[in-house]
């Protein structure tokens, strides 16, 4: 009988050295006392029961990287991309651990060292993060192309003829996920400055987002309708840039900074100055959580630091803003034709509930709508698997989470799922197609707007 070789100390750690994590304040990393209370809220731990796929495990790895015991290895990098970035762990953590910060710096290191680089990954990332999502006109042009592709019925034809199989595997998987693109963009639907009939209660800046703008521009129109109905003057800068959250969460910290600067400039151009606004509003949970952190993001930029602080102080999620402002009671009933109340359930976008701790306001608003009955969704704050581009990069875990979400939705028997984030809407709409459900996915602003207007449609076919 041989005696087994026992491996200790650790094998070498073939990877690169970190910069961002290394510079991160020791306090941020030491904040985690590895108590484990966050584990049951983490979707990747729940599914695998493996410590490495838990917040505590990931923080421990990041700490080891920062302290030089582990390099930025491929395994470490894959782990940090297996994380959804859903931030459920941040809500659960009593110790106040700033997971977002660590996670973004870790992904920053991963991209800077290039441990995950393969030709196709670099190409796609370069194209999307550096090319498309930094150029609003290009994004819209592509959106237009996709609209024509879908509107002409070409998508169905391509699918039918199985032409899609000719495309590379990644694209094949992506195609059915692709949301329906809107015929109009926000700029076509919303004036740069819109003013309510009576004297304005507040003057607000409106951020139209990029995914929201491409796929749910009507939600932006609905949001402005709701704001006008609530007596707000709305300033909507033209050709807005992506807020940079995609870049921030995906390790492109420098581009994220650039996007932040451009957004601040654009808002100032349209509004006069940030001083002239009572609030800067977003209706996309994922963006809001990032937009509120421009102050951290730009704190080392002498030209923008002060304005970024001002910016962050004014950014509000739309639900949060309306509740603080005191909402005007919506008028028309949305009850079903047979008089039964419209049953609506509410799915919480991770970055609204965990990132911004906004959970009560959207529910309060929905409950105000005449003819609407709010039914609670089990595990409403459990990630739906959309998680930015996670549904593209980690399709398997993403689809498991979607199935779990769709099952919970089915149990409510509601006919509408309200949620405040376009990323979730794309995922949930895909879920309805995949799981054969006829539930409608709607933004709370759309439901509110319908009630104020007394009809479904905003400017165009809805």
């Amino acid at each position, binding site marked *: 009988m041989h005696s087994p070789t026992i491996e200790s100390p650790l094998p070498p750690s073939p990877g690169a050295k970190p910069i961002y994590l290394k510079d991160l304040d020791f306090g941020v990393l030491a904040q985690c006392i*590895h*108590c*484990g*209370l966050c584990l049951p809220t983490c979707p990747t731990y729940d599914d695998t*029961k*493996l410590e490495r796929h838990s917040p505590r495990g990931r923080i421990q790895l990041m700490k080891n990287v920062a302290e030089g015991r582990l390099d930025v290895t491929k395994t470490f990098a894959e782990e940090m991309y297996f994380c959804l970035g859903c931030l459920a762990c941040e809500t659960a*953590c009593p110790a106040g651990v700033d997971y977002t910060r660590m996670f973004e710096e870790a992904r920053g290191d991963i991209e800077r060292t290039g441990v995950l680089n393969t030709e196709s990954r670099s190409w796609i990332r370069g194209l999307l993060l550096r090319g498309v999502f930094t150029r609003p006109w290009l994004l819209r042009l592509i959106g237009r192309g996709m609209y024509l592709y879908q509107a002409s019925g070409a998508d169905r034809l391509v699918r039918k003829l199985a032409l899609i199989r000719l495309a590379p595997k990644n694209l094949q998987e992506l195609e059915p996920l692709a949301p329906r693109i809107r015929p109009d963009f926000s700029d076509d639907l919303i004036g740069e400055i819109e003013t309510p009939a009576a004297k304005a209660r507040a003057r607000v800046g409106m951020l139209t987002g990029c995914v929201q703008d491409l796929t749910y521009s009507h939600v932006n129109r609905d949001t402005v309708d709701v704001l006008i109905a609530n007596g707000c003057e709305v300033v909507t800068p033209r050709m807005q840039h992506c807020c940079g959250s995609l870049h921030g969460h995906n390790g492109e910290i420098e581009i994220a900074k650039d996007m932040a600067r451009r957004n601040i400039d654009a808002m100032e151009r349209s509004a006069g100055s940030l001083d002239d606004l009572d609030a800067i509003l977003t209706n996309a949970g994922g963006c809001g959580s990032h937009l509120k952190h421009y102050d951290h993001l730009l704190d080392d930029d002498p030209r923008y630091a002060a304005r970024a602080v001002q910016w962050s102080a004014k950014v509000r999620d739309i639900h949060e803003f309306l509740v603080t402002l005191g909402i005007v009671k919506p008028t028309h009933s949305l009850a079903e034709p047979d008089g039964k109340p419209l049953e609506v359930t509410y799915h919480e976008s991770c970055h609204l509930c965990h990132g911004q701790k906004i959970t009560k306001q959207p529910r309060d608003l929905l409950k105000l709508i005449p003819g609407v009955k709010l039914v609670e969704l089990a595990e409403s704050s459990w990630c739906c698997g959309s998680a930015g581009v996670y549904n593209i990069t980690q399709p398997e875990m993403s689809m498991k989470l979607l199935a779990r979400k769709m099952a919970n939705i089915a149990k409510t028997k509601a006919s509408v799922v309200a949620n405040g984030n376009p990323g979730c809407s794309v995922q949930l709409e895909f879920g309805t197609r995949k799981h054969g459900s006829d539930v409608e996915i709607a933004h709370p602003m759309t439901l509110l707007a319908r009630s104020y207007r007394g009809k479904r449609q905003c400017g165009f076919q809805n």
Partner: protein
Amino acid sequence: MPHLVQDIAAFIPLDRILHSREDLLAYGYDGTAALHGVAAAVVMVQTTAEVQALVKYCAEHGIAVVGRGSGTGLSGGSVPSNGCVVLCLTQMDKVLELDEKNLTIFVECGVITAKVAEIADGVGLLYPPDPGSMRISTIGGNVAENSGGLRGLKYGITRDYVMGMEVVLADGSLVWLGNKCVKDVAGYSMKDIFIGSEGTLGIITKILLKLVPRPQAKKTMLATYSRMDAAAETVSAIIAAKIIPCTLEFLDKITLNCVEDYAKIGLPRDAEAILLMEADGHPAAVEDQAAKMVEIAKQCGATDVQIARDADEATRLASARRTAFSALARVSPTTILEDATVPRSELTKMIRFVQEVGARHRLKIGTFGHMGDGNLHPTFLTDEKNLDEMTRVEIAMKEIFDFAISLGGTITGEHGVGLAKKPFLPAAIGEASLGLMKKLKAALDPKGILNPGKIFD
């Protein structure tokens, strides 16, 4: 290394044998501050047969085996010794049987404590032991640590609910101990030896637990104090008045402010201390007890006593209390928690002593705990990089232990000895008692492969 992994792969699928550097680092700790170790491999077992095969293999080759549940232990029990095999039990999580006729539930060791509680609740029953970590701790870990909880005063601790267990012994053989009978004196009560054995005597794979009927009514109260020792006096007075509430939980000012920072449930931030009190049982008895407790609290100097409006508010208070330890980590980089326990009549002396020690050594101490059990968690809020302060922490810790022992108390009420309390054990229990433990260990684990170096060397 390949040998070890290859060998184990003969009886456990390769994808459940973790040995990458990243995985080993992620299993290098438990919930205890400043303890780390690196295993040679971490094996995710799923069946008793796999546990047996693994333990047998390790016994044959003299490799240490460290059992691990969810790694929330607070004395370093599941921190790996270098080069050991970690036997991780979180994937052994099947609920095997709920027996409503005999009021028992039979589970695998990796089932989460809260799940047992939920299942019991679903059929009108109660599984009383509810450690602060219950949403993630495993039942196996609870049994191995003999964990307490927030209801220990009235309902007792984990030991009081274990009716039987399946154990893999140090040579890989299997025994079943106990049964569903409420009475059983057929020989030694062997299962009791494994309760609280911290993974050093055997790996507990299945557990038969006792459930009790869920009390019909419950009342939760929050008493506020401007002096810490007044809260301790209240506890002693309630018990002296022959009232046994189910919960008497204490939080001092630092702790309650940390908890409030996290949970935002409206705790009185300027109080010096609060006492979370709960009575349960028959509705009339609960009303009566609660009224008496309010009265006693006020007599002992409570400045205010609030009664929870509804079940939701009561749950919010208890849940917030459970986060106390982790919430204290907000204050400083290093959080070192103690577990000194004294007879309940001595609580006031103990609380005063902890305050005095903190002041004398210029240390920040947040204290909370299961006051009804005499079990306090004085927690040092410090910085491991400040060596001078760490020296003072060590002296203060020793003084607290010595004082607890002098009052007839113990160095650990529920977290176990593990690595963290090992140096203090001989003084706490004496040579004779320690010698007996060592004999038992040598008899059950002659090669010393099960969690070596924990409790004693």
